């Protein structure tokens, strides 16, 4: 029983972590327990009612992505609908800097492009703020975060 309580606590902590997403459960806990703990017992942290995209973000992405790569990016963005369901969200590489979240992906249809898509969560909506192509695996440059925060503030 103690073990189950510990699992519950870990799951709860994961869901309420400051970034609130990108939940990765510790290894060794089987998938069924994760699903049970995160989906049935615990209420979702976020409820997403819609996704809105800045025209600026679309223009930015289309500047360096081919049409097929852009469609892949669209699908990644659509998956933010699962924001309230950490179990379905577990295979997305998401980092958070303050109130800005960033989806990272590379390889596959993206080839050598290291794609970063930025979004924020406001009033139950996902707001896609922009996209960049990174040349390396390093952290996102500070000026990019400033750019995205500025866009977000312009909306609020």
């Amino acid at each position: 029983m103690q073990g189950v309580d510990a699992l519950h606590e870990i799951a709860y902590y994961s869901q309420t972590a400051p970034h609130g997403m990108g939940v990765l459960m510790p290894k060794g806990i089987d998938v069924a327990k994760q699903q049970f703990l995160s989906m049935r017992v615990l209420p979702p942290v976020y409820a997403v009612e819609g996704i809105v995209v800045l025209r600026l973000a679309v223009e930015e992405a289309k500047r360096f992505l081919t049409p097929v790569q852009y469609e892949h990016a669209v699908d990644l963005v659509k998956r933010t609908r699962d924001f309230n369901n950490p179990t379905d969200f577990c295979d997305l590489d998401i980092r958070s800097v303050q109130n800005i979240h960033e989806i990272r992906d590379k390889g596959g249809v993206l080839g050598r492009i290291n794609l970063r898509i930025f979004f924020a969560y406001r009033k139950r909506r996902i707001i896609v703020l922009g996209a960049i192509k990174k040349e390396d695996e390093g952290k996102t440059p500070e000026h990019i975060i400033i750019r995205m925060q500025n866009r977000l503030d312009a909306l609020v």
Partner: protein
Amino acid sequence: MPQTMEHSLGQVRQEMPWDAIADELARSFNPRDKKRDRVRRLLTLLAKSENKTEAKEVLTTLFEVLNLSKLRFVSITATSDPEARSKLGKYRAHLGATIRRVRERKGWTQTQLAAKAELPQPHVSRIETGEHAPTFMTISKIAGALGVRPGDLDPGCED
């Protein structure tokens, strides 16, 4: 740009009175305006930038911070291109079929693969049927579980 010119531009950048410029610019903003701090930070980044590309990117952000006006939204679905979507569908179907083939060769069920890759089983199912957009992280997890390289499943994931 010739190397000497880039070098001298770098020198000019280093010699610019950035603090004075930042103070002057900051004065034009309300002290409570977030842009004030952002402009300051961007000028510091500009002064520190190590190459022309980086400096250009910082300047682009600075220009946007100073000039951003009305932002418009678009429907993400409306920006889709049916032809590109169809090509992406074929790519995913091919990738899904490859994963299924390797999994079946090992005699594993989707549930077994999902457990080893630490992914939900419906996720694996959607990837195998080409419904789902597998990310690099997903492909790496699946490849790791199957004991192959990501590039064996998807040539786009080759290093």
